[in-house]
């Protein structure tokens, strides 16, 4: 059953307003694979258009939309994984799926710090990465992040704290590494 034309128009305006955030969240859910993120977002819009995903006003529209994106991304990932397993002979496709981040890093310019930051994010468990993204990138509260992730607020807080701790450690390690490198470059005879 499709939603009414008036509802579509209303939704379209709201979705357009949230489109940038939605794409960022889809990117995070798809491990920074822009192509996959676009596909996921299209599928989400299709679900809304066909009335398969219906907003009932139980939470904010942004929270609901992000939850739909997260579920759709998980489904799409599973489907792609199955497809790649079926075509196991074609190893290049499997490699593409396993390392989408590396391909994407080449697609647009990033500072070295940003690259390391994204690399550190990638090493985090999915839940922790999601919690950090929702809080820092999307400016959601922990309660809203918990709603999107489909977990309790206590669980979301734990993921957030643990993720932040790990990310901080990894950033400190990275800074120390830079310091050592720069030190070597500045005074090679000191070693």
């Amino acid at each position: 059953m499709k939603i009414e034309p008036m509802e579509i128009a209303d939704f379209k305006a709201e979705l357009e307003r949230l489109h940038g955030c939605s794409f960022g969240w889809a990117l995070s859910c798809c491990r920074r694979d822009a192509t996959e993120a676009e596909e996921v977002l299209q599928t989400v819009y299709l679900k809304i258009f066909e009335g398969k995903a219906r907003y009932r006003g139980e939470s904010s529209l942004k929270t609901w939309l992000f939850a739909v994106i997260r579920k759709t991304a998980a489904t799409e990932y599973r489907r792609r994984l199955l497809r790649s397993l079926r075509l196991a002979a074609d190893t290049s496709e499997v490699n593409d799926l396993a390392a989408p981040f590396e391909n994407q890093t080449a697609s647009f310019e990033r500072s070295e710090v940003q690259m390391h930051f994204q690399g550190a994010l990638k090493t985090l468990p999915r839940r922790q990465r999601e919690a950090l993204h929702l809080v820092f990138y999307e400016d959601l509260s922990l309660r809203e992040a918990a709603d999107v992730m489909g977990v309790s607020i206590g669980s979301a807080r734990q993921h957030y704290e643990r993720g932040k701790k790990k990310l901080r450690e990894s950033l400190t390690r990275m800074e120390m590494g830079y310091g050592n490198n720069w030190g070597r470059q500045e005074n090679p005879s000191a070693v």
Partner: protein
Amino acid sequence: MEIIGDDKKIRALFSEAKLADAQTTPSFTSQWHRAQSRAHRPGRAFKLSLAAVTALLVCALISLAVWSQYSQPRPTYSAVADLRAPESSKPARVDNVAVDPAPVSSDPTVQRRVRSRVNRSATQANAALIASRGKSTTEATTIDTWQSPTSALLTSQTDGLFKSLPQLNENANELKSFLPGRANEKEK
């Protein structure tokens, strides 16, 4: 949420990533139109789940049909039941009527009517029994006189010669007379 020290750094890094993502974000209109065009695309004619359900349904129907065919009672059992029924029912009916004195009144006409009814039912039971016995006898006779259609092939005209024994004082020529051709020569 309080943001201090490293949190600020993390937030700054996320903001930087957000800016970079904003540059690569596809336009909403194109995404929406693509989604709409996907919605208008005709669905797959063959759905795997539908095919599986149909196959299961067909299997269930076939097994049900087979089961119902084999679970039906055989007609031979009913024939045996028909043959035995009159024998067992006959004395039971008569006894019931004769032993139970309550419904029978002392009036002789009523007694006569009851007796005649009992006699009639007994006669009917006897007739049924006789009919069934006659039927079984006829069937037995039919079975007794039954001959195989190939039994004629087992007999021949010379069966008598093979079944009779020659006498001890007969000579060889006479013995030869058993043969049909020789007998004719001797007569000549």
